[in-house]
């Protein structure tokens, strides 16, 4: 577990002292984060932020809601519909979900000055609100939520004092103030900490990833939104001119499209020894870290995206990123400075070739990317925004 002082060596000059000064304005306040589990969604941020906020002398707790299988099933369906997928929610299921959250409200100590409730699963806790300021935290893009689902869900969110979204444009209609706080990466976590060349080699060896040629790496779920087949096609165009290796590391396992895409990717890999397809669990932080550090160029050719932070992770490791123009990718990649944003397979291939033919750009963009992340996407910037939010809400 990292302490605030540990970030002095990675954050910008004065960043930690600025946080200490800002935290003075909310000393004595009590904060509570409630999530629907301890993995995925907003939990990485909560996991990193809670101990640091406690380190700042702020009474900060993290609680998780739970229930029976019907509760989780409805919560998953609700979440998918809020993210825009076509789903059918039964009145009975929603009633059960609400009842279970009423039980959760009785079990969890909700007494705090600011209560942050993250995403869909625990959202109806607000029906049992008493004191404090309640904030609904949305880590996904709900601008395209199913209309019927949003009409139902909005009645809950309008009972909060405020909502927070990762990007402007990710919001749906609400009557409460909607703030914007971009997510961040923790530079001291297992996913992002420094790794030496030997350690990288020890990790990549068992994965079957050789380092004898330039590596192109894309990490992300095997879904059409992340376009792994488009990445393979871009790689094939590049491969005609450069002897490179492509590593596609698929994380997550619940996506319905995954088996079909994986089968196509494995078939392509079967014909090409330089195309490596890996399946990694989401918590394979060390392996993901090593792959990003070993990469020559990191790809994130998503065609639809929320605010996935893979580009920020790669840039922090000094890598140029060739990414799609979607969701938070366009916010993270500064075109021609830290990488390129592209709209097609051909665009991705062109940018990769351009970088491989001009290797000095790889180093220059990598360095610019690291500084960009240091200023805008480290947890220290995130903590400043979080503290600004609670200062604003409690004054």
């Amino acid at each position, binding site marked *: 577990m990292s302490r605030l002082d540990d970030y002095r060596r990675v954050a910008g000059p*004065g960043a930690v002292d600025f946080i200490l000064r800002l935290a003075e304005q909310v000393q004595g306040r009590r904060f509570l984060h409630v999530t629907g589990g301890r993995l995925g969604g907003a939990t990485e941020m909560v996991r990193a932020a809670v101990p640091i906020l406690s380190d700042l002398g702020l009474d900060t707790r993290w609680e998780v809601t739970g229930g029976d299988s019907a509760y989780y099933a409805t919560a998953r369906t609700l979440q998918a519909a809020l993210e825009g997928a076509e789903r059918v929610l039964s009145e009975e299921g929603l009633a059960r979900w609400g009842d279970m959250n009423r039980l959760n409200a009785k079990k969890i100590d909700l007494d705090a000055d600011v209560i942050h409730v993250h995403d869909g699963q625990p959202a109806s806790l607000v029906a049992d609100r008493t004191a404090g300021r309640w904030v609904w935290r949305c880590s996904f893009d709900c601008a395209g939520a199913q209309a019927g689902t949003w009409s139902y869900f909005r009645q809950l969110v309008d009972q909060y004092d405020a909502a927070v979204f990762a990007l*402007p444009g990710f919001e749906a209609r609400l009557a409460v103030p909607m*703030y914007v706080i971009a997510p961040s990466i923790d530079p001291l976590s297992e996913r992002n900490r420094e790794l030496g060349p030997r350690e990288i080699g020890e990790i990549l060896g068992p994965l079957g990833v050789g380092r004898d040629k330039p590596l192109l790496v894309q990490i992300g779920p095997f879904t059409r939104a992340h376009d792994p087949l488009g990445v393979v096609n871009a790689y094939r165009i590049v491969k005609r001119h450069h002897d490179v290796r492509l590593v596609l590391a698929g994380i997550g396992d619940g996506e319905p499209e995954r088996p079909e895409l994986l089968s196509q990717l494995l078939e392509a890999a079967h014909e090409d020894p330089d195309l490596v397809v890996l399946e990694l669990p989401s918590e394979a932080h060390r392996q993901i870290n090593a792959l990003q550090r070993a990469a020559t160029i990191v790809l994130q050719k998503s065609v639809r995206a929320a605010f996935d932070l893979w580009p920020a992770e790669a840039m922090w490791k000094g890598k140029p990123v060739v990414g799609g123009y979607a969701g938070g990718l366009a916010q993270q990649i500064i075109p021609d400075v830290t990488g390129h944003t592209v709209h097609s397979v051909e665009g991705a291939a062109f940018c990769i070739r351009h970088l491989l033919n001009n290797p000095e750009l790889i180093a220059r963009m990598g360095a610019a990317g690291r500084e960009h992340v240091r200023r805008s996407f480290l947890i220290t910037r995130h903590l400043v925004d979080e503290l600004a939010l609670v*200062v*604003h809400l409690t004054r």
Partner: protein
Amino acid sequence: MAPRAAARPFTFTGCVELRQTLDVHALDERELGHRLQEVPAESIFFHTFGYFLRHRPVTTAYGNDFARWAALELGDRALTERLAIVDPFAFPAVDALREHLVTIVQDHLRGRDESRRVEFYRAFHFQRSHLIEVPIGLTATSLAEFRAGLASVDASSIYLHVVETRARSERSAGDFAEWLRSSLDLPALAERFDRLDPYLTTLERVRGRLLGLLDEALEAERA
């Protein structure tokens, strides 16, 4: 010459902006023109003066968020150029700035039947911000102390004292110049501070120029 002591100390304050999205969006130039007329003045402020706080030296300088959007999302070079040259400091009030921006967009659209429409995720999303001031525990009672403080403060402090207070209060002088004039009785130096142009540059460059002016003044004080 003995260093002057200030009649009252200068207290450096940093700031952080909490961004608020207004759920108001423009998908083409025409909508941009309409929304510019409707949004609160704080939003116009955020997308023009606030640009100085967010702008980083590694990115292309567009001068304000509207010009940046016209360039990156609409690909409309003429509109980009016309919006980028708008210097927010040249207007006595935010509403005058708003009128000027609306006039530019309307004039640009005159004679055009269509304007290019972008998908929602590329829309201009209007925002505003709430500024939280952060006392950073640094004060100055002399020119030398002021120079030392200015050299070390967070860049947001330069934004707050040079850009924000001047723009919000519609004063001609920023906090630094005001203090030099009223507490150190240095009107000539204050005048030079006020003449410094923060438009199309970065806060770090503004810091460097102010430090240069202070070094000259300190040299003169020592002579």
